């Protein structure tokens, strides 16, 4: 068994990735909740939730982690709430419904290419480890199908609740889903037409070989972005919930852990939508929005960007680590200033001492992390020389396993970084715009977005035909 693991590292990696990647992506969720709460607070000129803490006895520090502890307190509160089931609901479907959006959200992540396919030598022939967990020819269509299934959980939950307010929320969600699914599909079609394939890996590779989707399809990008807001039931399209109109919307009758599951699914869909937007329109795991030069290599359909990345791995890893380290050091510097402010303002000496200790810990952690990353940057630039390691077999460049692993890690981080930009955009827009009225949403979806998407598709088709 152990010998087999050592002999087939790529096969083992292929088996582990479907477990590891959802777990890693799930860790973005508490971060997203934190960004939502503190981002909302900062936009509205207030401090936001920052008071829950965990006391660490050894250090004597009240660890508040910038409000991160609220995630834990929320989870504990919701898990230990009474699991009340209203007597009038259809029990089976009612209990089953909250799980559906979570499952579809996680399945959507399985179709995203998280890193470039790695070629490796398996015995006599070449084999490829894909960055996607499910590699289907239908690609993005399957992703849309999973996304569309997510609303089934909402409708089923609202229907099984046997309450008119829930049902109204569920019907609104499903009607909006149907309306915006149309313009979503049509807007992304322009991109797929240029690529000539439905596979997401091919979409990303095309962007590596040409340029990012947002450059060639700006209108398609905007339409797709707006449709994604509607798909995720996020403001300004959050009519599925409406306190003033339909009590709480589709989750009126849900409480405790069932409600938490619905909320988890909402944020999971935000993450999935962000990753999809980054994949289709922001180059996915590609580093730069232009094809990079490569000496003595002229194969027409090849992932030049990834090859360039593998050839210059030390410099790229060094630059990324240096950027991350500078960011952490900057944050530590920010905390130094914050600590000084608290020293000036805090009410009494006990508080001052506590806060000084707490912020001292944060500053130490972030400064050490930043310095460590800077050291790692210097080390990777000096030690990682990969340009000579590639061997060309059957017109494919094969790199050693560790180069592939580091590349995959870097590309995963690039994709997550781009997705976090969109996550912030989701939060930012939510706290900027007022919500649309329901009929305005329908008018916008059917009378405006659908037409623009169709015209965009037509123009793209003509141009694609002329260019080819």
């Amino acid at each position: 068994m152990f010998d087999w693991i050592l002999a087939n590292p790529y096969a083992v990696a292929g088996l582990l990735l479907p477990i590891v990647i959802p777990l890693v992506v799930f860790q973005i969720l508490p971060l997203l909740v934190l960004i939502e709460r503190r981002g909302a607070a900062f936009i509205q000129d207030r401090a936001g939730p920052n008071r829950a803490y965990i006391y660490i006895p050894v250090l004597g520090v009240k660890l508040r982690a910038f409000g991160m502890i609220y995630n834990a307190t929320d989870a504990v509160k919701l898990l230990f709430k009474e699991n009340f089931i209203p007597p009038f609901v259809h029990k089976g479907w009612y209990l089953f419904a909250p799980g559906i959006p979570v499952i579809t959200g996680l399945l959507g992540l399985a179709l995203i290419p998280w890193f470039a396919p790695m070629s490796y030598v398996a015995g006599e022939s070449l084999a490829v480890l894909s960055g996607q967990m499910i590699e289907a020819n239908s690609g993005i269509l399957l992703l849309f199908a999973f996304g569309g299934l997510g609303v089934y959980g909402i409708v089923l939950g609202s229907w099984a609740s046997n309450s008119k307010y829930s049902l109204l929320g569920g019907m609104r969600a499903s009607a909006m889903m149907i309306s915006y699914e149309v313009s979503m599909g049509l807007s992304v079609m322009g991109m797929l037409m240029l690529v000539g394939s439905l596979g997401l890996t091919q979409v990303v590779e095309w962007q590596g070989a040409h340029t990012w989707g947002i450059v060639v399809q700006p209108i398609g990008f905007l339409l797709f972005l707006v449709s994604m807001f509607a798909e995720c039931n996020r403001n300004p399209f959050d009519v599925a919930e409406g306190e003033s109109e339909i009590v709480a919307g589709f989750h009126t009758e849900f409480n405790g852990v069932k409600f938490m599951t619905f909320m988890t699914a909402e944020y999971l869909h935000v993450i999935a939508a962000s990753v999809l937007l980054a994949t289709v329109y922001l180059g996915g795991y590609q580093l730069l929005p232009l094809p990079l030069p490569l000496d003595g290599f002229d194969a027409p359909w090849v992932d030049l960007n990834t090859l360039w990345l593998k050839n210059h791995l030390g410099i790229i890893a060094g630059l990324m680590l240096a950027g991350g380290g500078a960011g952490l050091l900057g944050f530590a510097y920010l905390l130094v200033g914050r600590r000084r402010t608290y020293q000036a303002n805090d009410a009494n000496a006990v508080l001052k001492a506590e806060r000084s200790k707490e912020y001292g810990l944060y500053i130490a952690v972030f400064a050490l992390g930043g310095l460590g990353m800077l050291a790692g940057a210097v080390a990777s630039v000096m030690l990682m020389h990969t340009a000579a390691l590639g061997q060309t077999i059957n017109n494919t460049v094969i790199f050693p396993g560790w180069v592939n692993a580091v590349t995959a890690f870097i590309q995963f981080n690039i994709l997550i970084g781009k997705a976090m930009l969109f996550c912030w955009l989701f939060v930012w827009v939510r706290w900027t715009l007022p919500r649309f009225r329901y009929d305005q949403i329908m008018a916008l979806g059917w009378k405006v977005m659908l037409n623009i998407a169709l015209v965009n598709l037509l123009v793209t088709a003509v141009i694609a035909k002329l260019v080819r």
Partner: protein
Amino acid sequence: MAKVIPRPQLSFWENIYFVEIFKGLATTWGHAQKNLIKGDFPTRNYPDELPALPRDYRARHRLMKRPDGTPRCVACFMCSTACPARCINIVAEESDRLDIEKRPAKFEIDLLLCVFCGFCVEACPCDAIRMDTTLGVMVADNRADFVINKTTLMDWAPADYPATDTQSQKAPGGSLHAQALADFNSGNRH
């Protein structure tokens, strides 16, 4: 005649939403980055950062002290009579000094009944009760703890009060205490 307010007509750029959306995003981004980087919010970190209340703010009461540390109160019941909420409960007893007739054996204020009107301060003939502690926050776990007694009322330090407040500085620990105690012992108790 009713005043007709014309419905505002949206211009072309306002009608396609996107320009206005980006303007709004720029506004909120300005606020977000200012608050993230500078960190000086218009709001206050309330229980950690307390507001500076002025001395004439009617806060929790205190009992003033003579230079020898006894309360200035002579248990005349003026304050409890003036109190519209009837929250002051005084039990008088005979003083052990020959020049002072009475003193409070018990002086309780029920903070849950108190309406913080300041009438007790106005009524007091001896400047014995004041509401200048700036203790605006009163917290307790049960109702009984909101009834504060003589010990709590006299638990204050002259150092926390300004030097111009001569009555407070005459109490034990104050800057004028030595002279005041000498005067007090020689019979000049005011």
